[in-house]
């Protein structure tokens, strides 16, 4: 039963319709979580005794940073599936993840910088996390650039998948090397947040926002995957019918 459904999911028209039905539900849930998270985070949660109100950037910054890593791993895993089993759908999911992941990485960097200015006194420090996040952004941009540079989209997806996997091997290496480099150079070490001592009223909105961002990723990835499928299958019958129905 499940395997049959899974096989059906691999067929582009089925996936297109399935994703189309899923998107409104997940999108609605995402919106509800987003509003709840923002309400709890911006209004209910108390201000931090050390950082005042500025800490509220955490509700954007930390979920973005989590998602930036999560999406990269998903992308590489889908890339591996695409390379090993030649599954078209995995290619599409991997490629559709890249722009969302790059966006979250960018957000993590920008909000980190906006948080750093009042807390550390500068927009940018060569802090271990900031630096590895910056390199992560470059890895994402590399995947996107490689994919868009190759004309044949199946070949492009496979090349981008290999690059994503090479990047996954490198991420821990980059992270630890940057951390080690930074500790040797005595960077400004400000502990941002004492994880165990975090107030529940601060923690709950953080987790809700993280969930909302995860749903946002799924929704957006499905939207992009639908586009990608349409574009790839533009000469097939089901897309022609769809375009015709669309224009009445």
């Amino acid at each position, binding site marked *: 039963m499940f395997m049959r459904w899974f096989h059906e999911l691999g067929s582009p028209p089925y996936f297109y319709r399935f994703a189309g039905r899923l998107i409104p539900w997940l999108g609605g849930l995402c919106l509800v979580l987003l509003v709840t998270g923002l309400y709890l985070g*911006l*209004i209910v949660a108390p*201000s931090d005794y050390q950082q*005042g*109100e*500025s800490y*509220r*950037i955490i509700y*954007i*910054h930390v979920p*973005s940073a989590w998602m930036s890593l999560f999406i990269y791993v998903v992308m590489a895993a889908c890339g591996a599936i695409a390379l090993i089993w030649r599954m078209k759908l995995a290619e599409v999911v991997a490629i559709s993840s890249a*722009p*969302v992941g790059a*966006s979250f990485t*960018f*957000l993590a960097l*920008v*909000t980190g910088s*906006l*948080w750093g*200015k*009042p807390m550390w006194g500068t927009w940018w420090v060569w802090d271990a996390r900031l630096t590895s996040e910056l390199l992560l952004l470059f890895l994402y941009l590399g995947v996107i650039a490689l994919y868009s540079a190759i004309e044949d989209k199946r070949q492009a997806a496979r090349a981008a998948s290999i690059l994503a996997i090479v990047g996954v091997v490198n991420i821990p290496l980059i992270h630890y090397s940057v951390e080690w480099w930074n500790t040797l150079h005595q960077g400004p070490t400000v502990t941002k947040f004492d994880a165990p001592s975090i107030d529940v009223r601060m923690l709950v909105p953080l987790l809700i926002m993280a969930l909302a961002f995860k749903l*946002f990723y799924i929704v*957006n990835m499905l*939207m*992009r995957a*639908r*586009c990608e499928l*349409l*574009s790839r299958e*533009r000469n097939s019958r089901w*897309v*022609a019918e*769809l*375009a*015709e129905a*669309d*224009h009445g």
Partner: protein
Amino acid sequence: MAEFFHMGGYAFYVWMSYGIAALVLVANLLAPRWQRRRLLDELARKARRSRRQQERAARNS
């Protein structure tokens, strides 16, 4: 209310963060929507053109 927007003096940093986040997320939602629209329009145009050609060919024969 004013106090809420003031954010204890950190208004610029906090609202800038939230504003940029909103902008990036909305842009991510719009991009595939526009791409889909463009693609469907292009396909419809192509279909119409080929149909017209077929009709013309049928009339000429």
